[in-house]
């Protein structure tokens, strides 16, 4: 089969690895991680553009290297070629290998930040697509510059307070961390924040099944031409609508 994969760049190493091992010919296109910061509808519109750019009659399917991603895949429509999307809430579930494992881990650790190779090398400085007036993730200095000393400090505290509820940084290890740099960087970040550092073994089997064409109904949603992907708000995460 010839397949097209449109993926978030946060999964860059994992997807390259999976595609290299796929029995199929997979053409890769990565989109900026910053799409996530645009919010659900604008993100879906950008991914739809990438889907619509795909030429007709070339691919057996367009694979989506995403989860529901804060409704960023909600409403995506298949044109001439079917779309395949894992039934995942986000990339953390994909890196863990199943949504059940993610859900269980999440419930045990509601205050965990996640890191992976992509989150470290492609997660930072990628706010370029964010509407900068929204002001999330701005450093204290730029808040003060924009809103003055008193209000700037207040805003910074208000907008980062949720982080004080976090107590753990979990690095999902997929075996693609060439050199020790990634793990050292994540450990240092945890130390700076005073958080517990955990190395959690990842599981790339789910991503491999995506690029291998092994699309069980329980793990993937397949939208045929004219059908759209929608959030299902149940354990299946996403569904297909006519």
């Amino acid at each position, binding site marked *: 089969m010839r397949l097209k994969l449109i993926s978030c760049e946060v999964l860059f190493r994992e997807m390259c690895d999976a595609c290299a091992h796929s029995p199929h010919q997979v053409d890769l296109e990565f989109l900026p991680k910053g799409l996530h910061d645009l919010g659900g509808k604008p993100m879906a519109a950008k991914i739809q553009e990438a889907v619509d750019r795909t030429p007709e009659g070339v691919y057996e399917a367009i694979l989506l290297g995403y989860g529901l991603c*804060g*409704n960023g895949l909600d409403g995506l429509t298949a044109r001439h070629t079917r779309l395949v999307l894992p039934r995942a809430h986000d990339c953390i579930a994909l890196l863990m290998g199943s949504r059940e494992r993610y*859900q269980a881990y999440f419930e045990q650790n*509601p205050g965990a930040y996640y890191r992976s190779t992509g989150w470290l090398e492609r997660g930072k400085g990628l706010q370029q697509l964010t509407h900068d007036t929204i002001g999330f993730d701005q450093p204290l200095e730029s*808040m003060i510059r924009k809103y003055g000393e008193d209000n700037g400090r*207040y805003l910074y505290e208000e907008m980062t307070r949720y982080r004080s509820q976090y107590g753990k940084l979990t690095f999902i290890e997929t075996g693609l961390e060439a050199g020790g740099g990634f793990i050292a960087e994540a450990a240092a970040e945890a130390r700076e924040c005073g958080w517990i550092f955990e190395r959690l073994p990842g599981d790339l089997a789910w991503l491999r099944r995506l690029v291998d064409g092994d699309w069980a109904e329980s793990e993937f949603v397949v939208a045929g031409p004219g059908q759209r992907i929608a959030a299902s*708000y149940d354990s299946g995460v996403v569904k297909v609508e006519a």
Partner: protein
Amino acid sequence: MPELDKLHEAVIEGDWKAASAATQAAIAAGVAPLTIVGGYLVPAMDEVGRRFDCEEYYVPEMLLSARAMKAAMEIVRPLLAATGAEPVGRVVIGTVKGDLHDIGKNLVASMLEGGGFEVIDLGADVAPERFVEAAAARHAGLVALSALLTVTMGSMKTTIDAFQAAGLREKVKIMVGGAPLTRQYADAIGADGYTDSAGGAVALARRLVAA
């Protein structure tokens, strides 16, 4: 009166010091606390909500307006309590179990307070039974649930179910909000109301307590 116009302006502009000073001046000049709230703070926060809805204001501007409004409320609240004035309604608010993201919830809480509601803020990562206990203990007619993640949206249903199980579902109106939510989801889990903005939350809350 000029103090009150200044108060209105200060809240919209997010200047808490000016809001505090104008409120003190108005009280000193004999303005009734209820007039300050109903005549100035509520309309000012309504205007802030309107500006947010049409993308003139973003989250930081709203937070600063909320801060100015709260500075005024700090002065007015004890005086209001002394007059025995009843709030528009009493609302229990929090982010649902598993969700630590509270910026949106805090904004809605501020907007509701600015809109004349008594707000009982349970904070973030609130278990269903805590919502139920607080609503019962404080005789709140309204419960507001927030979630930022699709992973935690399921906790909204669990919370609504907990009210049902406790036999309190008919006694409270439940409103839900948060970035990943939709009206369909709100309907599917049996919420009484949904809105996609902090400004809209005040209008919705007023409708729900009036119903």
